[in-house]
């Protein structure tokens, strides 16, 4: 265990870097708290526009022109109608953007998602709103929209009564081939989470109950018949969605308890038969440590086997600097133009641990090959950087965002 030297304790005000270099930093006009929605548009006029969903009100989303990464410029920044809603998540396909809306209480609007025409990035035009509000619903937490045809999402619904209020968001598939008229075509929830299920209600996590809810709901063109779903307290789920109206469970890897819950992302590496599964740290000061990124052998998809975890820096050095420290979002190899795709190098955000890149070419021994931990942003209430999400573009530039105040950091990898 590395012990800090006298007079040389880890300090959240210092920058730490290995093989990542800051290219630019933008505080987003003073609204530098970004959620987990990042999408890149290659606009018709040849620009690269990075769309960012804010973590909470008052701002909805911000678009940043990163064509010249040394000189990012805000193109547009929009407002939410009130402070009980947040966008948090978005995805971009061509000139269409889906933006999630989640409310802090049930029975509140808007709760669902919007589709925008962003053909002119300066003036996004609302195409339609998909309403998911209801008596037991807080709307949509996360969207996955990569093919221009379907929005896959973690969402509540007016007709869904969860057995426990924390289990309100499940997996829904919405057909948006007619963008003006989005229509739900299928859904899946963990048996036992809906009132009326034949399966009895599930035992709660004894210490860290964040609900049996869907988080990321990823579907890739390599396997259009599969959905890879992080199900928070429920672990990692693979679904057969060949028939979207009737998703079927293929496998369900549960590891909490004994672990501390909150399975966030299930990222398949198709050529390698692997899944990269990330947790989300949701408690400050290391209370829910360890929050890990797992490498899972999924050659036999009905029997996923965890084989290693990403080597994170010492918890003693980072957990008590203020805020959270542990795994969160990964760059998800988005199957859209402009996104970097790698089955060997996985980049993720770790809140106070910054953004980190891992080489998984040997899946049994992932190696950390790069990291960047910005100094604590001025005015951040956390006391340390809280990197929330990351997007890597096909120029190998890394875009990462702070959850509270720091805004956008653009980094160059020298791996």
């Amino acid at each position, binding site marked *: 265990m*590395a012990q*800090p*030297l*006298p*007079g*040389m*304790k*880890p*300090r959240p005000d*210092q*920058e*730490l*870097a*290995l*093989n990542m270099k800051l290219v630019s930093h933008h505080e987003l006009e003073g609204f530098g708290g970004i959620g987990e929605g990042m999408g890149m548009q290659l606009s018709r006029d040849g620009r690269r526009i990075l769309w960012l969903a804010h973590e909470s009100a008052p701002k909805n989303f911000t678009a940043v022109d990163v064509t010249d990464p040394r000189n990012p410029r805000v193109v547009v920044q929009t407002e939410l109608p009130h402070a009980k809603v947040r966008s948090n998540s978005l995805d971009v396909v061509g000139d269409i953007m889906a933006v999630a809306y989640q409310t802090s209480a049930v029975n509140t609007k808007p709760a669902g998602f919007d589709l925008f025409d962003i053909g002119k990035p300066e003036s996004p035009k609302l195409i339609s709103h998909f309403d998911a509000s209801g008596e037991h619903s807080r709307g949509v937490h996360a969207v996955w929209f990569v093919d221009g045809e379907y929005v896959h999402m973690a969402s509540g619904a007016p007709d869904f009564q969860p057995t426990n209020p924390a289990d309100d968001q499940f997996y829904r598939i919405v057909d948006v081939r007619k963008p003006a008229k989005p229509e739900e075509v299928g859904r899946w929830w963990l048996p036992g989470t809906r009132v009326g299920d034949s399966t009895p209600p599930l035992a709660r996590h004894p210490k860290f109950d964040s609900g049996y809810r869907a988080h990321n709901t990823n579907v890739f063109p390599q396997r259009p018949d599969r959905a890879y779903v992080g199900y928070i307290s429920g672990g990692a789920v693979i679904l057969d969605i060949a028939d979207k109206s009737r998703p079927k469970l293929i496998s369900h890897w549960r590891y909490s308890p004994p672990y501390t819950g909150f399975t966030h992302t299930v990222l398949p590496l198709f050529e390698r038969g692997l899944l990269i599964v990330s947790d989300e740290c949701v408690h400050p000061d290391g209370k829910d440590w360890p929050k890990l990124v797992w490498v899972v052998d999924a050659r036999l998809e009905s029997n996923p086997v965890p084989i290693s975890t990403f080597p994170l*820096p*010492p918890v*003693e*050095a*980072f957990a008590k600097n203020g805020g959270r420290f542990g795994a969160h979002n990964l760059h998800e190899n988005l199957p859209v133009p402009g996104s970097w795709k*790698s089955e*060997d*190098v996985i980049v993720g955000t770790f809140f106070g641990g910054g953004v980190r890149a891992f*080489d998984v*070419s040997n899946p049994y021994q992932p*190696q*950390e*090959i*790069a*990291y960047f*931990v910005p100094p604590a942003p001025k005015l951040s209430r956390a006391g340390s950087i809280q990197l929330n999400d990351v997007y890597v573009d096909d120029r190998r530039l890394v875009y990462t965002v702070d959850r509270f105040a720091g805004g956008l950091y653009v980094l160059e990898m*020298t*791996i």
Partner: protein
Amino acid sequence: MSPSPAPTRDSLAGKLPVSLITGFLGSGKTTLLKRLLRDPGMNRAAVIINEFGEVGIDHELVASSSESMTLLSNGCLCCTVRTDLQETLRELFIKRRAGEVMAFDRVFVETTGLADPVPVLHTLQTDGMLGAQYRLDCVVTLIDAVNGLQNLDDMPEAAKQAAVADRIVITKSDIAEPGAVAALEARLARMNPYAAHCLAVNGEVDVAFLRDVGPRSTHAMPQDLERWLAPSGEARPEGAYLGERVRAGAHDAAIRSFCLWFEKAFTWDTFSAAVQVLTSLRGSDLLRVKGFVNVAGEPGPVLVQGAQHVFHPPVTLEAWAGEDRRSRIVFITRNLSRESVEALFAAVGTLAAPLN
């Protein structure tokens, strides 16, 4: 060893460069280190020294310190070798990652005056963790103009230090006899024409001379390779040959340096077979080997370097820069002639399966 496949990771750019500072007792290492530690250009450097006492760091320069590490007010991190260099380099990397020391971006290592620098080179090549995080940037050898010639004659370690150098700093030129510097330079030029020289009085040397010598990226350009292999301009092929005929001192008479060029591409098997024969029969006499090889099927030149029996993992650059595809390898050897090495490569070449 075999060349890495088409690189998805830049195996050079991703590593922290290490410069070794070597030099015989009294060559002025301490004076040089004293200056370096105070240099504003050292603000992201970590310097590993043998003893704090020697470099005499003033209190007002110290930003924070512990028993073995001191952060100086210019941002330079100075630490002493603990039990051994290997452990010190590992510990530094671990502390860097935990944020317990600043995120240094290069390391200077002082070797002890009597030390043979070659085992230190091996440390970086044979320790898996160190090899993954650090790369050798260069060997800097200090030689003083007053006693340097004598040391080269009398002390085999001094000759070896000069032979393996990528950069040579000549010190004490201000107090040396007239003509001593010129004599020393001429001697060094014969012994190791592939190292650039500079003069330093009272340790004053441009930090830039001591760093960024080795190729820094698999995108390295021809000028980067040139700076590494022939910093003082192209050594004429006959230079080394004539050099062997000039009267030299007792100990370095046997030290030769030469550069071999090969017109035809190698297969990796051929090249590594030749290197294996060379290291197994005469490894201890290969003081330093460095260069790049045209290997059939590789997208760019393959960098090779080694010292005695140990070679670094080869690194394939992304592309050739121009039309010239010749392989080029610098050898610094002891009691091993250019002709023998050439003959070995030729013999192995005749046995090689023809290229398709």
